[in-house]
């Protein structure tokens, strides 16, 4: 399975990101979803959802509350098994897989309602994200063989490095649950990055952050994309963020896609304005 994974990328400071939206065009998309749908009892939460994401694209998923955005994430990560439709990751069908397998193939995510390992330290949280990056077996751990020491050392360095994206190295030994809300959200992102994903799903990463914190987050999201060269898909209600960094946006309403396109297209779409943005946004 790991052959579908990208090699870990060393973090090197990248000079100012010059986004080329077309850069992915000649490559196969990392994610191709077609006719995806799920029903909960009588309720069709997502229906006929189609989408493709480029290998280094930042994509946005927006829509009114209850439109089915989180559900899409849950389907992609197999928290729910789709009722219909296919999900192709890197050209491979994920049908019948579970959360763990999908993660190993390269999808990582954060959660709308934060799910950290609250009683563990920040560092441990990230190390758990790095679980599959380490390869020693239980006996080597118990006997403390060199393979254990080496893997642990590398993992710890890597974890601190990842934390440094958000300047969180200093908090490495704090309990995750004691962090302020915003820091917890950032930690979730770091943990997800630890699994070395090809596609990162962020569910409302800016919720509970004030505008200046949000602006900082935006920068970091772009930075992550640029350094790791991965695709990012995010759900967000903060239009400044979405319009600011997403190259492609998909709008959901009542489980159905009502619009797709560039930020400009979306902002101009009357359907989207009516269902989601409201008129006021126009003068923004």
């Amino acid at each position, binding site marked *: 399975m790991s052959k579908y994974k990208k090699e870990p990328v060393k973090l090197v400071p990248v000079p100012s990101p010059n986004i080329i939206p077309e850069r992915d065009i000649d490559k196969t998309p990392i994610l191709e979803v077609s006719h995806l749908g799920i029903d909960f009892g009588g309720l069709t939460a997502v229906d006929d959802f189609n989408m493709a994401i480029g290998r280094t694209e930042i994509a946005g998923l927006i829509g009114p509350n209850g439109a089915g955005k*989180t559900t899409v994430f*849950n389907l992609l990560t197999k*928290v729910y098994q789709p009722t219909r439709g296919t999900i192709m990751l890197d050209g491979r069908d994920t049908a019948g897989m579970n959360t763990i397998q999908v993660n190993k193939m390269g999808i990582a995510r954060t*959660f709308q309602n934060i799910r950290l390992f609250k009683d563990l330290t920040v560092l441990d949280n990230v190390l758990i994200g790095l679980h599959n990056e380490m390869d020693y077996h239980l006996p080597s751990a118990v006997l403390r063989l060199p393979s254990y020491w080496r893997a642990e050392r590398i993992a710890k360095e890597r974890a601190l490095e990842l934390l440094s994206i958000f300047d969180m190295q200093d908090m490495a030994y704090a309990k995750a649950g004691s962090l302020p809300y915003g820091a917890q959200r950032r930690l979730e992102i770091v943990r997800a990055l630890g699994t070395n994903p090809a596609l990162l799903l962020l569910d409302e990463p800016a919720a509970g952050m004030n505008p200046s914190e949000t602006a900082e987050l935006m920068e970091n999201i772009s930075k992550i994309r640029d350094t790791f060269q991965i695709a990012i898909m995010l759900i967000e209600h903060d239009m400044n963020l979405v319009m600011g960094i997403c190259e492609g946006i998909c709008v959901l309403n009542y489980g159905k896609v009502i619009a797709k396109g560039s930020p400009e297209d979306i902002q101009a779409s009357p359907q989207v304005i009516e269902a989601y943005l409201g008129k006021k946004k126009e003068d923004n």
Partner: protein
Amino acid sequence: MSLVISQLINGLQSGSIYALVALGYSMVYGIIMLLNFAHGDIIMVGAYVAWLAMVHLALSPILAIILAIIACTLLGVIIEKVAYTPLRSSPRLSLLITAIGISFLLENLAQLIFKADAKRVPPLITGPSINIAGQYVDFTAIITIVVSVISMILLTFLVRKTKMGKAMRAVSEDMVTAQLMGINLNSTISFTFAVGSALAGIGSILYCCTYPQASPTMGSMLGLKAFVAAVLGGIGSLPGAMIGGFCIGLAEAFVSAVGLSVWKDGVVFAILIIVLIFKPTGILGKVINEKV
């Protein structure tokens, strides 16, 4: 055939006691998610109170019954106030260990005070046997079954329809938010314990009618079985507790009836395990899917 019917009645009778005790478990579990290990021991105290009242105070059975129920109710509330209230925001297991501690304490105190010998409780409720389908059924059996069914119905009504019931449900879900709704946390929890313990009181009376002995350790086995019944039925669910109690009672009866009495406990637990494997939240337990 008549053998089957009498075994059925045997199972229903012992099952109804389990059910009554399981109802108390479920009540308390429902509100603070605590497996109240002391519940069985409250029954033990009730039995001793009934015995004291009848034998030493020479009271009439009716007075003894009332006294036992009051004593259990008070004891339950006191235990809640003294031992469980300080632990409300603590890990659940700590609460569980406290409950176990209280259970040990009651058992050992009873032993200290009443000595190890079982006490014979004089008949509390007497009446004529009743002929059902050609089979004479003991009066106490009928009473036990009827009382537990009525208790279940009343309790279900209490929880579903009354304001107190609403408060109980809210508290069981989220104590902090419940307070913000204007619900009196302490009185709601105390009330629940009072009801649960009153049930234990009733349970102790019915127990003594059928098995007229009071001993310090009588509560632990009964409590354990009732706890199993509550889980089998889906813990927190009142009709579930009822069904679980009857299931255990009937299972025990029929396991013995087919000549496997030696294996009785093993078979009962095996049934429980099999049920749980296929229905992981018990017979009537709700499957709560966490929204991600």
